[in-house]
């Protein structure tokens, strides 16, 4: 029964490697992914882009082709452009593909929905011309499009990676406005021991910084009071750094201060989450096989906690082994034996994370934005609105949602959820775990009423009343 043994949602590194490992174990696998080509965001459109601009994007990117090639297996069906909007009864997945709604069922589901940019609310961040740094990188990877005269704002290795790729592309950014401080770096040194086990990452980081210096890209560090000026579009970035107020004219402002797990689907099936202090975000609760409190649902990759592409691929394989064992395709002994080298690799991959997370923390100005800053981009609700609602007795984000619409728009709280939790926690003096998060309901992504109603086996509603 069912359309497959396993439905994998997301064709990034975790989803791709899980699908192949599961297929190798004898499971039939259905991959549902929103994009027209496999790769996820990290390896976006990697098969086409590698041929066109592999030199520019580097080996870490083109290496993603090894994963896309692994999808070539008779037991793997990959539905491209399939947008999942509901998971019900543990393993019944509703999705839309090319304007047509459909339902797929399986014995297990693996959520491999990856990460989102950490929301970075600041004055002017909704203006046209302001994008996430990840968006700029997607444009570069997928379309070979570069932002002219951009300013990169925030912190973290991704900023350096994008800056160095832009430099190589001959479209160098005007400047990097970095929010991490020397104190952050000093704090990070106690994690250096662990980081040295992840030395390839450190080496890459140093190489990128050297490239930026050689390219004479100006770096401002410890930036505060960052704002984006503009009326109809971004025109400049203003900030304080080194005791001076600065202004850089630019129409392209790229924001980044880390990525956070995309937990929308996990939330939608009521998987418990907890607050991760170091990464300053919620993570779903799962064991070291990716198994969650919802028996049929597993999670792997950045969606279970940020670890990067290579860690995600390993975690995907580990989850696939557990699922294969669940479905009697693998003995416990072979599952454990196969998992052992994967776990060793995972351990190594994660070694540098505490160092990176401490050296490049989230920008405090975006975690505690000024009252006039928009938090919910969809409904245009400000930080001050949230604080006023806290004063009206709102203890959690579901109450502020009801009182003031934050999180009610089409993005379903993806870009305001963490901000609202943080602001409410600060205002009410409660820990984020107590404050909680939005309850995520279907549709996980908007779907037209016609697409829903046009599906088979729908039941007409009963008699009505108000």
């Amino acid at each position: 029964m069912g359309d497959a043994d396993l439905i994998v949602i997301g064709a990034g590194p975790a989803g791709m490697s899980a699908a192949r490992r599961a297929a190798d174990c004898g499971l039939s696998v259905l991959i549902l992914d929103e994009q027209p080509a496999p790769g996820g965001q990290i390896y976006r459109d990697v098969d086409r882009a590698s041929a066109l601009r592999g030199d520019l994007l580097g080996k870490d990117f083109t290496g993603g082709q090894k994963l896309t090639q692994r999808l070539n297996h008779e037991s793997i069906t990959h539905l491209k452009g399939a947008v999942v909007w509901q998971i019900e009864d543990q393993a019944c997945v509703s999705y839309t593909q090319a304007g047509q709604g459909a339902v797929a069922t399986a014995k297990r589901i693996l959520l491999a929905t990856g990460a989102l940019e950490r929301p970075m609310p600041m004055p002017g961040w909704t203006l046209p011309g302001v994008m996430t740094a990840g968006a700029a990188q997607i444009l570069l990877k997928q379309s070979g499009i570069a932002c002219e005269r951009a300013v990169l704002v925030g912190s973290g290795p991704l900023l350096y990676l994008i800056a160095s790729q832009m430099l190589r592309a001959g479209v160098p950014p005007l400047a990097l406005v970095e929010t991490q401080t020397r104190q952050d770096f000093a704090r990070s040194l106690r994690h250096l021991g662990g980081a040295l086990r992840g030395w390839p990452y450190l080496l890459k980081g140093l190489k990128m910084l050297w490239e930026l210096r050689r390219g004479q890209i100006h770096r401002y560090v410890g930036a505060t009071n960052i704002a984006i000026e503009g009326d109809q579009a971004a025109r400049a970035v203003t900030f304080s750094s080194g005791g001076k107020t600065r202004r850089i004219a630019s129409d392209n402002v790229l924001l980044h201060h880390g990525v956070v797990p995309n937990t929308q689907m996990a939330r939608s099936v009521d998987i418990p989450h907890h607050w991760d202090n170091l990464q300053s975000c919620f993570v779903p609760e799962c064991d070291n096989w990716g198994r969650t409190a919802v028996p049929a649902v597993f999670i792997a990759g950045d969606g279970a906690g940020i670890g990067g592409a290579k860690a995600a691929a390993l975690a995907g394989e580990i989850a696939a082994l557990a699922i294969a064992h669940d479905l009697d395709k693998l003995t416990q002994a072979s599952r454990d034996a196969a998992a052992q080298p994967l776990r060793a690799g995972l351990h190594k991959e994660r070694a540098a994370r505490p160092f990176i997370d401490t050296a490049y923390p989230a920008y405090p100005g975006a975690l505690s934005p000024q009252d006039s800053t928009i938090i919910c981009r969809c409904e245009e609700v400000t930080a001050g609105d949230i604080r006023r609602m806290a004063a009206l007795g709102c203890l959690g984000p579901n109450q502020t949602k009801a009182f003031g619409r934050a999180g009610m728009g089409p993005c379903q709280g993806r870009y305001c959820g963490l901000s609202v939790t943080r602001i409410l926690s600060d205002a009410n003096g409660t820990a984020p775990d107590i404050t909680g998060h939005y309850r995520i309901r279907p549709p996980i992504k908007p779907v037209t009423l016609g697409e829903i109603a046009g599906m088979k086996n729908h039941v007409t509603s009963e008699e009505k009343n108000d």
Partner: protein
Amino acid sequence: MKPGSNFRELTPMPDTALVDVRFGTQALRLPLGENLAAALLVAGVMPFRRTPVSGAPRGPFCMMGACFDCLVKIDGVTRQACMLTVAEGLEIEMPAAKGDLDG
């Protein structure tokens, strides 16, 4: 790069067909099969829409289908431009903005 655009195509592909697309009253020639949001950015289209709440201008923000700021209307349906590809004859409009809702 077109006038008014802040985005440059690094490696224009000569073998890619250009097709006719309209954005509002603007006639555009866009590369077939390209990501729609990316192609509109290179063509200098901005903003993509005005919000239904305040009428503020918006354009692509996340390019990965998460933020819903690049919404456009095609055949009467509101869609994310970053999740679509360029096709021949697309008629693109801005979705309903504040002023449209008041009527």
